[in-house]
């Protein structure tokens, strides 16, 4: 049994204090969200450009949640959960991407 100690992000005994990283995460998520809204309602990019950028902002939001709220870097032994989550992201990309590709039925028969 692996007993590598978990990385402790915060000292256990510390009382009170201010949750700086949580506040930072919250502010970041607000900024990213407002950014996406602003892009859609006020910017003059094309449909695909906008789509690309707001999807990118959404991916950043994942990182914000993972890093600031979900303590993804905390681990107890090897970080299997990060590997599996990474693989999951890859398969999400495959499922959505390939479904669009397949279901577009560009049969190209001439």
């Amino acid at each position, binding site marked *: 049994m692996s007993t590598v100690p978990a990385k402790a992000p915060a000292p256990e005994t510390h009382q009170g204090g201010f949750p700086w990283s949580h506040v930072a995460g919250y502010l970041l998520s607000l900024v990213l969200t407002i950014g996406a809204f602003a892009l859609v309602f006020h910017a003059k990019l094309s449909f695909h450009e906008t789509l690309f950028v707001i999807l990118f902002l959404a991916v950043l939001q994942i990182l914000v949640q993972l890093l600031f709220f979900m303590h993804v870097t905390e681990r107890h032994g090897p970080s299997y959960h990060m590997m599996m989550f990474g693989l999951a992201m890859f398969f999400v990309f495959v499922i959505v991407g390939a479904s669009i590709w397949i279901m577009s039925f*560009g049969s190209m028969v001439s």
Partner: protein
Amino acid sequence: MKRITPKGKLVATLAMGVSTLLLTSGCGQLLVFHPAGPVGQSELQLIWLQIALTAVVIIPVLILLAIIVIRYRDRPGSKAVYRPDWSENRTLEIIWWVIPIIIVGILGTVTAKKTFALTQPPKNPSNPTVVQPLTIEVTSMDWKWLFQYPNQQIATVNYCVIPTNRPVQFMLTSNGPMNAFWVPQLGGMEYTMPGMIMRLWLQADKPGIYYGHGGNFTGQGFAQMQFNVQAESEQQFNAWVASIANNSPQLTQGEYDKMAQPSILGQMSFSSFPPNAFENVVMSEGGKYMKHDQVMMNSISSK
């Protein structure tokens, strides 16, 4: 029938089976290995290549298995070498990582070429003159096949006639559950799907009657979804078209709707079909949203 017990049925079946075996002689033909046109021919070439390349691996495996099992079997006084800790050999491992990679590489390349080629009308080296392809619209229904000839304005059920040496463009759709259109001697299958037009290029090089059947299960009448593709010379084909156009009844909208209901029918011919019957099926409901490529839509609307 209802009185017979399952056991009785079983005995009767077995008895019937044995007697039928004795009475019937010979085997069916390996249709896939006897293609009658360039498409089936091209697919068969790939199959032969696959057989050859996989045999390169399979046969040594089987021989090795036999030799190893016989030689290293544990029997008293066996003189065969015993090396319980021998478990690594880089050279050997590299060899059998690399051989399959090479085989897959070759097969993958050929597959890719053929897959793209099959989306084009068959090219016939023996008949290089450009021939106008024939278009046939095929609708699978519960449980029959409707063939419409948009340029000839005739329709048939459960059989169709095509001219030899001329590429035929089958445009496939379904008015009911999805099926698949398969004429093994002419070439591989393609699904017929509601709301979609699928296109399949086939061509017959010699006259004959070719067996066709639905390829995807559609319910209780599925086993009866057989049809024939009859290949004839150009003149005979034209004569046939003329005779159908002159002698056969019309297919009215009412009869079409009746036909779309589940039933099993024999072969039928019609001198007309309801205008836009095929297009209406394709574009009804879900079909509106599917991507139908422009060439195809033009060919439909240009009639």
